């Protein structure tokens, strides 16, 4: 099936399954991206190329990926599988890859990523649509890179092996570098270099931590369940946690490691901004919850106060910075930093509400930021400027655009009743339960958020109707696929929001409203897993840092269940776990390359030592 040389592990029957849907989901975008490059690009008689087939293929692939990801959302098993502290890995797909290094190919879905995967695929589908609309210079390469980046991000969300995670973590960075560096505007080279070097700097330190884990874990196994079962000593946890947090914090724009973010967001082309701000940032916050917290619970408890203070500083700092920016894209960049720090604050609360709210807010923030950045492009196509002091009163000519801007502006300022409020209120409840002052101070950001967002919104659509806003007229050359040309704008649009633009915004707006009105289906799916994470963290808080989890195979539903022993409800008998299965990959049959290497080395040594004495 794959080029990775996967062999099934004895004892985990049907591990890869047929069809291996998660694997298909994971590699569908990248495969499509590589296929794109094979498509011929036909020159147009009037110059340039016709990208239509390329765009169709890319969009189809993105939508298919989204559809497949929704399948996992629908089929996701609700409930707590008998015990509240079960950590169920659903749809597991496990195969050996490089067993001698403890590296396996291990994908699975749980409450943490069950929503983030559709977020990634959905927002990417919208972003690719936006790219089809806005990018006409070397569109094939652009779309291919977007799709490859999507595979990278999906891999981060789906990986249950630390090394696999790291591979995808680095994989998503490469396309981002080119997306910003080639198609960006202004100081794009500086921005993208800063972005890549900054994040790689953190990643390498994380890689060292991963090597350490490999060396110290019994059985040299980097699978998450094995790591969870053997947490490092409390002294090692400290620096391991900090190494992870440095890498993930840089990517999540944790204050004061955020300085790459505003430049990158502003200089990148809008679809790439959506990719980086909406989804790529979430991979970092997600990885903190997935790996950094449960693997190093003692250190997490130790540093939560310090990190919370950094996050609060970042929240207020980003909001204050957003207040004085002139560029509408830069306002959003700083507001994004502010919100990302709020998500981090919720994570560092280390309790159920904080984590639930953070995951909810990751999705909200991804959707809202995608909408807002796309709106920036839509506004720019009409105003011809991105400076707040150069535009005014656009609502007169473009009322529908104003309406959507209003909705997204309200979502970004956490209006109760819209999605971000549900997330941020839950986050703040969690933070309040862990530290009342933190929540009280962090909640002040709502005031600043209202202030900078209303300044942003009013600056664009309100005020005197000036020269900048053209009167609504019939637009003869309303060819949707060619009118946008970023960063070089061919002509200013004079029509209100067209259906093709609405197609990008309406789904995002619908999600924002849905998550605000009924967020329960969301937390229903996240809560059991989050409870397990919170349980691990609680056990780490008591200083033990000792064995926190075991892994069990559940034969009926073919699920891996990480049983978290947090002492909360251990009195209940466990009925669903007829056999305990501890992964011991050393005993399993290694893959073909592994076998070959071993045979050659054995034979050579033999000849060298014995053969020459005769």
């Amino acid at each position, binding site marked *: 099936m794959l080029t990775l040389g996967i062999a099934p592990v004895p004892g985990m029957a049907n591990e890869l399954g047929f069809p291996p849907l998660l694997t298909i989901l994971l590699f569908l975008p990248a495969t499509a991206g590589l296929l794109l490059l094979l498509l011929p690009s036909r020159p147009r008689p009037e110059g340039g190329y016709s990208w239509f087939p390329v765009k169709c293929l890319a969009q189809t692939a993105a939508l298919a990926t989204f559809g497949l990801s929704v399948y996992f959302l629908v089929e996701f098993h609700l409930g707590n599988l008998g015990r509240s502290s079960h950590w169920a890995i659903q749809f597991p797909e496990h195969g050996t890859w490089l067993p001698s290094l403890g590296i396996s190919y291990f994908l699975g879905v749980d409450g943490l990523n069950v929503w983030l995967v559709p977020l990634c695929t959905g927002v990417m589908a919208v972003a690719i649509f936006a790219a089809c609309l806005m990018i006409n210079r070397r569109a094939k390469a652009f779309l291919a890179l977007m799709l490859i980046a999507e595979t990278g991000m999906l891999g981060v969300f789906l990986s249950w092996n630390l090394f696999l995670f790291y591979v995808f973590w680095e994989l998503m960075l490469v396309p981002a570098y080119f997306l910003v560096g080639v198609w960006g505007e202004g100081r794009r080279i500086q921005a993208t270099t800063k972005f890549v070097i900054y994040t790689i700097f953190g990643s390498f330190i994380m890689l060292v931590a991963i090597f350490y884990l490999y060396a110290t874990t019994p059985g040299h196994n980097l699978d998450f369940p094995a790591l969870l079962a053997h947490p490092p000593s409390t002294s090692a946890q400290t620096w391991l946690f900090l190494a992870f947090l440095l890498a993930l914090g840089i990517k999540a724009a944790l204050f004061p490691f955020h300085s790459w973010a505003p430049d990158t967001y502003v200089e990148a082309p809008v679809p790439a901004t959506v990719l980086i701000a909406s989804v790529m940032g979430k991979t970092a916050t997600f990885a903190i919850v997935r790996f950094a917290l449960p693997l190093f619970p003692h250190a997490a408890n130790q540093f939560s106060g310090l990190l919370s203070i950094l996050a609060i500083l970042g929240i207020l700092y980003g909001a204050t910075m957003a207040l004085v920016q002139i560029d509408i894209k830069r306002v959003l960049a700083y507001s994004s930093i502010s919100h990302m720090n709020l998500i981090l604050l919720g994570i560092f609360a280390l309790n159920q509400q904080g984590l639930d709210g953070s995951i909810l807010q990751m999705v909200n923030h991804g959707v809202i930021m995608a909408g807002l950045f796309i709106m920036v492009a839509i506004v720019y196509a009409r105003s011809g400027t991105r400076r707040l002091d150069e535009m005014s009163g656009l609502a007169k000519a473009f009322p529908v655009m104003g309406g959507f801007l209003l909705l997204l502006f309200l979502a970004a300022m956490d209006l109760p009743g819209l999605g971000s409020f549900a997330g941020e209120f839950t986050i703040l409840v969690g933070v309040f339960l862990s530290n009342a002052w933190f929540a009280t101070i962090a909640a002040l950001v709502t005031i600043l958020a209202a202030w900078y967002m209303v300044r942003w919104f009013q600056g664009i659509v309100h005020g005197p109707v000036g020269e900048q806003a053209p009167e609504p007229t019939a637009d003869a050359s309303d060819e949707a696929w060619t009118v946008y040309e970023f960063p070089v704008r061919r002509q200013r649009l004079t029509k209100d929001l067209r259906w093709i633009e609405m197609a990008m915004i309406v789904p995002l707006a619908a999600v924002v409203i849905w998550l605000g009105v009924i967020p329960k289906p969301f937390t229903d799916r996240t809560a059991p897993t989050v409870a397990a994470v919170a349980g691990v963290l609680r056990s780490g808080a008591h200083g033990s840092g000792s064995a926190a989890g075991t892994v069990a195979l559940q034969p009926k539903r073919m699920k891996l269940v990480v049983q978290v022993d947090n002492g909360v409800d251990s009195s209940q008998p466990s009925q669903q776990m007829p056999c305990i299965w501890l992964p011991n990959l050393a005993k399993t049959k290694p893959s073909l390359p592994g076998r070959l290497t071993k045979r050659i080395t054995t034979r050579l040594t033999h000849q*060298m*030592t014995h*053969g*020459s*004495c005769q």
Partner: protein
Amino acid sequence: MTPDASSYLIISAILFTLGTVGVLVRRDPLIIFMCIELMLNSVNLTFVAFSHYLSSADGLIFVFMIMTVAAAEVVVGLALIVSIFRTREDIDVDQLDEMHG
């Protein structure tokens, strides 16, 4: 009388030093090559000597490998020298400093 191991080692050390000095002070790449060969062979001599006195075949194996590598090296090196001479008409190694930092 059979010479003891130290004689071999002394000769080997002299050869090695000669080779090293040659590599360091000469500018003609062909001479440098020959000096490198000298160094390699001095090491070979050491290997053979040790192999003999320790009654182990390991050293001999290494000698073969070194000879192979040296032959390969000469092939590649001479080819490089020829192509450099063709392009530059000059093979003074001190002139080949394009790669300096």
